[in-house]
């Protein structure tokens, strides 16, 4: 451009560029250069900081400018041009993915809801799909069966030759159950953490689009 900008104006343009990350690259570059040209025209060559701040105040917040650029995006064309909201669809998507109930169908419906929501990025959707293929129903059930069977088996083995049980082998069954408990905690805690993260991410995307 023709002149060097005041550092405050420069910082504003950088913030605008950062805020505009979500819009297509060509539009983003055009928007930033339009605002830069606006600043060039609005400010005298040796602008004071107060002059710069007044011009920036009139322009408004970078986030608001970016929000005004959004309705043109085809992603949001479904809700009659309105910004997407985090709601029943996102809630159901996460609940069904985490629980996976009813088996198979619940997870599949959750996966579809996750994929069609405009509030998550491709990477977040992938994360949601990878963490619990099948949901808790598919992972917790087999694990609890294994731990119960493991305990029973070690008890049967320790039945004495006379047919009288001599007690379960504490070391064997305890070790197996402990592993199963750790696995179950991981299997339960991890999906819940990811669900909480995705719920927050959808809220942020909603706020950014509003």
């Amino acid at each position, binding site marked *: 451009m023709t002149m060097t900008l005041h550092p405050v104006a420069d910082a504003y343009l950088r913030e605008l560029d950062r805020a505009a990350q979500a819009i297509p690259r060509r539009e983003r570059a055009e928007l930033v250069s*339009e605002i830069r040209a*606006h600043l060039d*025209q*609005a400010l005298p060559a040796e602008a004071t900081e107060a002059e710069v701040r007044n011009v920036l105040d009139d322009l*408004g917040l970078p986030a608001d*400018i970016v929000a005004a650029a959004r309705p*043109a995006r085809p992603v949001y064309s479904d809700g009659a041009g309105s910004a997407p909201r985090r709601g029943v669809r996102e809630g159901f998507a996460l609940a069904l993915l985490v629980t996976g109930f009813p088996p198979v169908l619940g997870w599949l419906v959750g996966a579809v809801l996750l994929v069609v929501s405009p509030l998550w990025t491709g990477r977040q959707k992938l994360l949601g799909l990878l963490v619990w293929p099948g949901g808790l129903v598919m992972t917790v059930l087999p694990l609890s069966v294994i731990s119960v069977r493991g305990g029973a088996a070690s008890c049967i083995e320790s039945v004495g030759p006379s047919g009288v049980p001599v007690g379960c082998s504490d070391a064997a069954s305890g070790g197996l159950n402990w592993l199963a408990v750790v696995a179950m905690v991981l299997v339960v805690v991890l999906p819940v953490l990811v669900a909480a993260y995705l719920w927050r991410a959808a809220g942020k995307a909603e706020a950014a689009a509003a």
Partner: protein
Amino acid sequence: MVVARDVLSQLRRGALEYCVLALLSEEERYGFDIVRTLGSIDGMVTGEGTLYPLLSRLKQDGHVATTWRDSDAGPPRKYYALTADGRRALADFTAEWRRFRDSVDSILLKGAI
């Protein structure tokens, strides 16, 4: 009050693009000129910066066309001019707006008496 503000900002957003078209009905103008003119009208624009995305949307919709022209001071400027489509859209909106405004006024003012 929050509801009233929401409604007003929706109304403003909807009407604003036709105000831009109206501004261009007499002559072509460059972006900064449009933004400053609308920005100086009370209650018209909340943030001047939001007009630039609006201008590029009007161009995408084919309601305005742009041309770069050299300027006496500084770099070339992008001028916006109304297209035939834009002129038609403006005429439609103007007619509908009058009808809408009169209807709302007739009810609001009756309610006030």
